[in-house]
Every structure is written in structure tokens, then in C-alpha cells.
């Protein structure tokens, strides 16, 4: 479950994200000023250089500058240091990057940061805290529903969204409704037990 925030340190004292950030500075500084209108058009065309955007992440408005090509996942992790959502396949397949966008589960790797403006973004950090866990987080702990833990943040968010729609899921609902997340350790059994426990104990709002 989410621990108090710790920076990802390497032995050199520089986190991987800091390294990636500093290595892209050259490209960023040469980017063109953005926000021109298309020729004779009333539609604003942004980029390809950085544009200023606002994201509402876990109830807080965050301002940042990103190129239009930056995904929501990269913006969360590399720009805002909200690192709960994980980058694994980066191809809309594994579910490790799952966040809620206006309450719906989405792959943050396949949403552009610039298109996530004006929407409520909730990551695993926004569901609960170590002191006050979300029912899904608590049930994951109690049912040993993680092993290496890398898929866990995405799975927790996906399970919370699933239970919102299926308060009393049967096994078929579970198989289909959690089909968008993969766990290579094979903790599916614990995850199914955790979801069933949340349902049995009154659901995600209990």
C-alpha cells in the first residue's frame, strides 16, 4: 500500500526521473513558442513546443508546462512527482498506469496530458492514505493481494472503479471486469478475494 512519499534514489543520489528530466532540457529550451491559430482558422493550434496546462490531480490544481506529446502518465510521474501510477507496457495493455479520469478507469499512458485538462484525475495516492486506507487498499493488505507490487497501484484503482459499477460481483463479472490489468507475479487469486471482501463488507463507500 502507498507508503509515505519517498524519492526513488539511485546510488548516485539522482533519481531516474531527475535524470530523464535533465536530459531533455536541451530539447525543451529550443522548442518554439506555442499557441498559434491555424492559418485563417478559428481553432487554436498548440505546440509542438511546451504549452502551459492545468491538471486537477487528487483534488489539487497543478500547473505545468509540457509538449502536447507528453502523456498523462509521464506528466504525473516526471513533472508532478505523483508516481503511484506505474509505467510498464506504455501501450494500453497492462493496466499498471490505471488512473480515474472523471471517475472512469483509463490507461494514463494513452491519454495526452493536454487533453486531461478540466477533468478530475485520481491516482492511487488520491484513494487513501496509509493511515486512512481506501477499502480496496485495506482488502489488498488483508488478502495478500500483491507480491512485487508493481501492478498494485493500477490494480487498486481498477478494482475501486470496478466495485463502483459492480457492488456485488460474481466470478464472471470479476474475470471480465478486471481484464484490463495484468499481474506477472500471478496474485490474481488474492486480488479476487480482496474484491469479494470489499463487496461483502459493504462496498467501497463503507
Amino acid at each position, binding site marked *: 500500500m502507498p507508503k509515505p512519499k519517498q524519492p526513488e534514489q539511485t546510488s548516485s543520489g539522482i533519481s531516474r526521473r531527475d535524470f530523464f528530466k535533465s536530459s531533455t532540457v536541451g530539447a525543451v529550451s529550443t522548442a518554439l513558442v506555442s499557441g498559434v491559430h491555424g492559418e485563417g482558422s478559428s481553432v487554436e493550434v498548440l505546440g*509542438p513546443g511546451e504549452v502551459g496546462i492545468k491538471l486537477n490531480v487528487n483534488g489539487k490544481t497543478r500547473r505545468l508546462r509540457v509538449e502536447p506529446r507528453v502523456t498523462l502518465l509521464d506528466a504525473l510521474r516526471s513533472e508532478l512527482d505523483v508516481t503511484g501510477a506505474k509505467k510498464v507496457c506504455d501501450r494500453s*495493455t497492462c493496466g499498471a498506469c490505471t488512473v480515474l479520469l472523471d471517475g472512469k478507469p483509463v490507461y494514463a499512458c494513452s491519454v495526452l496530458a493536454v487533453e486531461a485538462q478540466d477533468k478530475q484525475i485520481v491516482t492511487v495516492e488520491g484513494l487513501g492514505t496509509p493511515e486512512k486506507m481506501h477499502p480496496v487498499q485495506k482488502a489488498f493488505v488483508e488478502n495478500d493481494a500483491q507480491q512485487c507490487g508493481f501492478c498494485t497501484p493500477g490494480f487498486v484503482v481498477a478494482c475501486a472503479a470496478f466495485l463502483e459499477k459492480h457492488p456485488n460481483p460474481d466470478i464472471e463479472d470479476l474475470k*471480465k471486469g478486471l481484464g484490463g490489468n495484468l499481474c506477472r507475479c500471478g496474485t490474481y487469486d488474492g486480488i479476487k478475494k480482496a474484491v469479494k471482501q470489499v463487496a461483502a463488507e459493504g462496498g467501497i463507500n463503507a
Partner: protein
Amino acid sequence: MNSFEYASPRTIAGALEVLDNDSVILAGGTDLLSLMKEGLVAPKRVVNIKEIDELKGINVGEDGSVTIGALVTLEEVLESPDLAELCPSVVEAAAGVRSPQIQSVGTVAGDLCQRPRCWYYRNGFGLTAMKDGKSLARDGDNRYHAILGNDGAALFVNPSSLAPALIALDAKISIVGKSGSREVALADFFQTPSSDQEKEYKLEAGEILTAITIPSPAGKKVATYEIREKQALDWPLTAAAVAIEMNGDQVSAAKVVLGHVAPVPWVSAEAGAALAGKQVTAESAAAAGDAAVKSAKALSKNGFKIQLARVAVKRAVLRAAGMEV
């Protein structure tokens, strides 16, 4: 991913203004962003059409026709009482996209316009998967490739989940471009490319697919049946959709469309003809399955798909008739 300009118009007219020959349309994004990360698509401009309200909503016309806006999400398809009542085969097909994360943002038009999953295509060898004058697919790992329509250079399979069900119901699509609008039968939208210069569907640069219209499906018995390798997110190994019209207890007309077996959604006139004039029974359904794969030809590693396609057709027919599969 290459860097690109970005626009998010609020009207179709606005979208047409900013779309040019070097632009791509962004809707759900689950396929497009993957393609861009692989460098398979590298546009100068990305036009996000998701803010265009004209492209949203499901409407049932006075004539009983059903119009599905291009931006209707798979989740909206799954939760539509109108579609559940009038064309449950389309809902069954959407349920086959087994990822809530894709269902919540993936759109109907995006399902139709997603690019093939062929691993040679996805790794940069083009739709015809050619390397040094040889077909990587014909001589390589073709276990998921085409068993029908595979005489030419293209051996990938059409990846759409919804197309078979929509084509079985004679759906048409509306397309707008700078020079006007047109309506085409969905079946004619798809094509088998003869070279990498052609695409697998006919949407020109600067055009937008705006809506899908199903003529009144009243009275038709419909179903989709998928055969899958795993229950979680994956494309089916093969699928069949049917729309059957009855005259008394006999089939007056049947349309059978297979998915994931050919470079296009495969309309099997043979399977339809096998059912015409018959009662739907286990025997006639099986005969339709046999007819559907009569001209199928296995590649080196996908012979198993012929049997799967045969069974998918049989079970789709039985399901449409409300019989046990």
C-alpha cells in the same frame, strides 16, 4: 513519439479547418498513441475530436434505424438500453473488448479504424510484412493470420470487434471531408491492400468518420460469438456475427460475417445461402459453419483457426435463434 501540434476543435467544421494531409485524428487514443510511440504514425498535427458534441450520442429514428455517433464509447454501447433491445449483437461484440480502461475511452469509430494487430505490421514491416522481397507472415509466425482472403500480399486480419456485427446488420457509415459528405456501406469501407501504399480502410486524409447508421433491425435475430485465447484483454482468435430474418419457422435471409479471419471483415455469402430456406437447427447451423470455411486456406501455422471459424459461425447462428450453443 515525435513532437506534434495539437488542436481540440469543438465543431466538425472546426476540425475540418485544422485537419490537413499531415494530421491524424485522436479519439480514444488507446491505439493511436501506441502507434505513435512505435513510430508507425508520425503526424505533424494531432486533432483531438473528443470535444465535438455533434459526434456523440445514440439515436433511434422514426423508421427504427439506429444511429451511433462516432465518439460513442464502448462503455456507452454496453450500457445502452436501445442497443440491448434492438441490436444485442453489437453489445455482445463491445463486451469482447475485455478492458474497462479501453471501454471507457475507446470509441465505436476508433474500433473500426484501429490498425491491425499483426506483429509484423506493428514492428515496422508494413501491412504486407515484406522483407527482402519475401513475406515475413507467409513464411513466419502466422498463427493469428488470415485463413480467408489470403491469396494476395496482405495476410493480417481485420482487428475490429464491432465490424462483423454492424456489417451483418447492413450498417452504413457517414464520412465528411472538406469537399462534402458521403455515406458508404460499412462492408465497402474496408479493403484488402495490395501494397503498403494502400490502407485497410478507405478514409482519406482530412476526412472524419462521423456516424454509423443501422437500418431498422426490427425482427432480425442477431448474435455475435467470439472464440478467445484468454478471457482478459486480447483480440479474439475468431468471431462470427449473424443477422437472420425469419419467415415462419424458416430462414428467409441470413447474413453471416466473420471477424479476425481475413484482412477485411469477411462476409460469407456461402454461409448465408446455406441457411436460407432452412429451419435453424444444430444441423443447419453446423452446415452454415462448414460453408463459411469451405474456401478457407490455412497458412503454415494457423490451420486451427479454420475449425474455430466453423464453430464460431455455428454457435452464432444458434445463439441468434435462442438455442443452446
